[in-house]
């Protein structure tokens, strides 16, 4: 186990193994997102109350899932970096932040747009919406903090600490719909019961969620490999690799 962790911590080893895994996640992401898009937009039945505006769920929910999962991943990577000084973990955390910010923006935007026909307003300062907005600011803070230091090590440590502290916001987002009275409906998917939607509505949603997760993994592997090339550019194996490629 320890040997495995140390291997995983070696940029060279990580570069090689992620190069093998990456294509599979791209293929999975492309197939699932295309299938989910076609199914969700054209084949899933319209909602009996919301009509076709309900189709926004197929981008809103996967984006919101990713927004939160990426922040947790970033905090875990930050912890791994701080405790074991594993550089690859910090590189992964660095490349995750922009995708997380993009997904948070997508969920806020699609939620606002969806709110207009269903709630009659695009924004409310309620718990779920406000905590998601805070998540967006946390992402932007992590990205800005990395750029604010001339020393890479200080930047990495500061960003890791902010991610680890900011992760407090994630349970607040999750339980905001239960703790406070909000406009936002409670979770569509739970571990304990079947979704309240018919199968032909939630199955494409599940496909989209899996597609978005595959996309996240594929993009993170690809950009972590880029980051390895950038930070390890003076290493012998990188120079040899560049000459071969």
């Amino acid at each position, binding site marked *: 186990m320890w040997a495995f962790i140390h291997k995983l911590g070696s940029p060279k080893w990580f570069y090689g193994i992620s190069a093998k895994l990456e294509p599979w996640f791209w293929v999975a992401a492309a197939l699932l*997102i295309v299938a989910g*898009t076609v199914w969700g*937009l*054209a*084949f*899933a*039945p*319209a909602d009996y109350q919301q*009509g*076709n*505006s309900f*189709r*926004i769920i197929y*981008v*809103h929910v996967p*984006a919101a899932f990713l927004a939160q999962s990426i922040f947790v991943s970033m905090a875990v990577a930050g912890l791994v970096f701080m405790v074991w000084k594993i550089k690859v973990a910090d590189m992964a955390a660095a490349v995750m932040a*922009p*995708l997380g910010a*993009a997904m948070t*923006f*997508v969920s806020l*935007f*699609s939620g606002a*747009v*969806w709110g*207009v*026909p269903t709630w009659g307003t695009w924004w409310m300062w309620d718990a779920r919406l406000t905590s998601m907005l805070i998540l967006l600011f946390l992402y932007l803070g992590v990205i800005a903090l990395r750029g604010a230091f001339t020393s890479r090590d200080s930047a990495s440590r500061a960003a890791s600490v902010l991610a680890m502290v900011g992760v407090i916001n994630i349970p607040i987002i999750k339980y905001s719909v239960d703790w406070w009275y909000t406009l936002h409906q409670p979770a569509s998917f739970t571990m304990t019961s079947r979704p309240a939607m018919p199968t032909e509505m939630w199955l494409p949603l599940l496909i989209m969620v899996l597609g978005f997760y595959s*996309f996240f993994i594929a*993009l993170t592997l*690809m*950009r972590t*490999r*880029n980051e390895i*090339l*950038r930070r390890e*550019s003076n290493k012998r194996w*990188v*120079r040899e690799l*560049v*000459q071969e*490629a």
Partner: protein
Amino acid sequence: MAFNSIAEFIAMGGHAPYVWSSWGLTLFLLVALVWHARFERRQLINSLRRRERRERAREQQNAAQAPLQTVVEGGQHDT
């Protein structure tokens, strides 16, 4: 199929602006992120290769100059 015609599909039962703007933004961002990662990779590889070429050229130059200098020095010694 939840729609009877292409026109009906595009109209989304009057919710076209909401549905298409959400989907448009999402898919645009996904494609843009992939494009950016590919661009980043190409740039990195190119700049690393340029650096490698530059260094090899400098090494060759040094190698070519080194014997020349000894010849000149040797010549000076003779006189």
